């Protein structure tokens, strides 16, 4: 689990095998493993901030917002933030797994839309098909993408870019170019799962929490989850260790597709319809939350707790902007972009501080 950052050309997600070669051929990298790094206080602080920065920042923002805006720390407002975070949160779990394994998945926004359309269509046959159909199709899309990436060594960025186009095209084709909108009966059990509340909180929030808990256990406590870190850290070393690298990568894309489908189904249940234009650009939001959460895009390191904090941070900031009274989406975009820029710059500087001694 190295936390090295390539100073340039670090687009490991797209770089695939070539980056792997560069990774090995570079003497400085060899010394980057945490064991060999001197444990100076500054470095330890830097590493701690990089890993735990997002939860700390979230706590600070929430604290400040609670004092600054009387409407912020109310139960209703917090419940609404959590609900708004639920779809993105579920998707971001899958994205985190993929990014830890050294890949990237640009298709999640389209797969999310496709999952919603399929769920709304299948809901007429009952609640089970309403989940089974989108999960099966979206999982299959993830599986196919993973196979192209893992078995044929094609770059993840491009394969999932094709997935982005293909899944959106499929969603449009299923709805007659968006002219047909599949409706979910308001009183269906399926619809209840989307807009029902338990203890005053929408059910999708519980789904999100469950996905995060299961994801955390998978990542931290199972061989398969730990293998993601190994593959992301060094693909060639993992191959030499005898890990089934291709299968591990395929699994990560499969899970990512499944979760995007699940999020889409829940959204269809909430909006009681399947709309093929949902989720445009969500892949970017998901990547942003993962990055803000301290997961490195070069792979091999990351945490779901950070990702959860990253998702919540984005949504809390939007909520704070609304508290100020500007419902202006332009302002939201500028603030989100600036926030992301600041976070990645700070992270790059922190990583550099950690690696300085090996220089």
């Amino acid at each position, binding site marked *: 689990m190295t936390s090295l950052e390539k100073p340039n050309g670090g687009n490991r997600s797209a770089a695939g095998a070539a980056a792997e070669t*560069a990774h090995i051929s570079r003497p400085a990298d060899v010394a980057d493993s945490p064991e060999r790094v001197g444990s100076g206080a500054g470095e330890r602080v830097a590493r701690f901030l990089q890993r735990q920065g997002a939860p700390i920042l979230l706590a600070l923002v929430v604290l400040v917002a609670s004092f600054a805006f009387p409407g912020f720390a109310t139960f209703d407002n917090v419940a609404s933030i959590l609900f708004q975070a639920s779809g993105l949160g579920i998707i971001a779990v899958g994205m985190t797994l993929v990014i830890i394994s050294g890949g990237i998945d640009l298709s999640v926004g389209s797969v999310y839309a496709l999952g919603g359309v399929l769920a709304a269509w299948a809901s007429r046959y009952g609640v089970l098909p309403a989940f089974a159909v989108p999960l099966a199709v979206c999982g299959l899309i993830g599986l196919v993408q993973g196979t192209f990436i893992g078995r044929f060594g094609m770059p993840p960025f491009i394969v999932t870019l094709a997935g982005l*186009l293909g899944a959106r095209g*499929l969603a*449009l084709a299923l709805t007659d170019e968006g002219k047909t909108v599949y409706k979910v009966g308001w009183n269906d059990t399926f619809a209840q799962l989307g807009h029902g509340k338990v203890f005053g909180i929408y059910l999708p929030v519980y789904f999100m929490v469950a996905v995060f808990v299961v994801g955390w256990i998978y990542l931290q406590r199972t061989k398969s989850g730990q293998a993601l870190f190994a593959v992301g850290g060094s693909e060639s070393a993992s191959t030499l260790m005898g890990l089934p690298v291709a299968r591990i990568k395929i699994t990560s894309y499969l899970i990512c597709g499944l979760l995007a489908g699940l999020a889409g189904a829940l959204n269809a249940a909430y909006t009681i319809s399947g709309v093929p234009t949902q989720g445009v650009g969500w892949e970017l939001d998901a990547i942003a939350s993962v990055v803000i959460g301290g997961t490195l895009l070069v792979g091999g390191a990351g945490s779901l707790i950070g990702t959860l904090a990253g998702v919540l941070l984005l949504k809390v900031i939007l909520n704070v902007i609304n508290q100020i009274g500007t419902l*202006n989406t332009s302002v939201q975009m500028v603030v989100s972009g600036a926030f992301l820029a600041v976070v*990645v710059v700070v992270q*790059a500087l922190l990583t550099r501080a950690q690696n300085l001694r090996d220089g």
Partner: protein
Amino acid sequence: MTAPTVPEQLPDRAADAVRERQSRARRIGWIRDYGVYVALLVLIIFNIAATPNFVALDNLRVQLVQVAPVMIVALGVAMVIGTEGIDLSVGAVMALAGALIPLYLGYGVPVAIAVALLGGIASGLFAGVLVASIGVQPIVATLALLVGLRGVAQLLLGGQFRQISSPEFNNLGTGSVLGVPIVVLVAAVLAVIVGFLMRRTVFGRRVVAIGGNPDAARLAGLPVRRTLITVYLLSGLLAAIAGVLLTAYQKAATPSTQGLLMELSAITAVVVGGTPLTGGRVRVLGTVAGALLMQIVTATLIKHDLPESSTQMVQAAIIILAVYVQRDRGGARR
């Protein structure tokens, strides 16, 4: 591609195997290098035969005018990808450049265009400094710009779109010189310039060297940081040029939609054109052909009454196919 020569002392069967592999590599290499041109040619021939009015001058003009902005943006993205980077900000830069035009048109067309291009340069400079000097990964650095810049563009025009009534400016988008639309002329000239930059200048060799192996480039004493910043700056500038032309063509600045998803179209054109995402190679002519190919595919499907959804799925298939035939390179490196 220089394949190693067959050592003479190898036993016959082994030598055969090596020769077989070499000829296969050569075949695949050929598809990789010329596949996009062949596909483009096949498609054009198909259209001449099967699509009514395809060869009509009006239709060709429309196709070229529509593809020109994608092509211009893709030229910049190709250079960035050549350094093993990526630029997701180009669509937002187009929106920003478009939004700046109506604000400064009062000072004259040249001033407005200059300001718009400066906006693109500033954005590219920002991305370049983040990537080269601070060490932020290109995809996140430019992602932040993608999110933020469109917001800035919308704020500049107060969330509205703005019609532009200056005939002098709009002529850039709709006018022609000797029957060739100005937009197409600009794209062609820029393609020649970028092609010259990449093939015949020290700068071009540096871009390829950095993409091939950044550490070797640094150890060889190349100005890696300066070159990288220049590449992102040029990408921003080219995106801004495309934004200005598109604004003139539409006779309006529409910050909320202008250049939306352009980053994906541009990356597609570059990849289909045979530039590997792993850097170290920039194919300018291939990029031009890639953009043309995607445009004509779309036009063909629309002309034959196929819906938008099929266009997207066909594009996805082309991307997968293009990268599949190119993957030989990645495999060889591993």
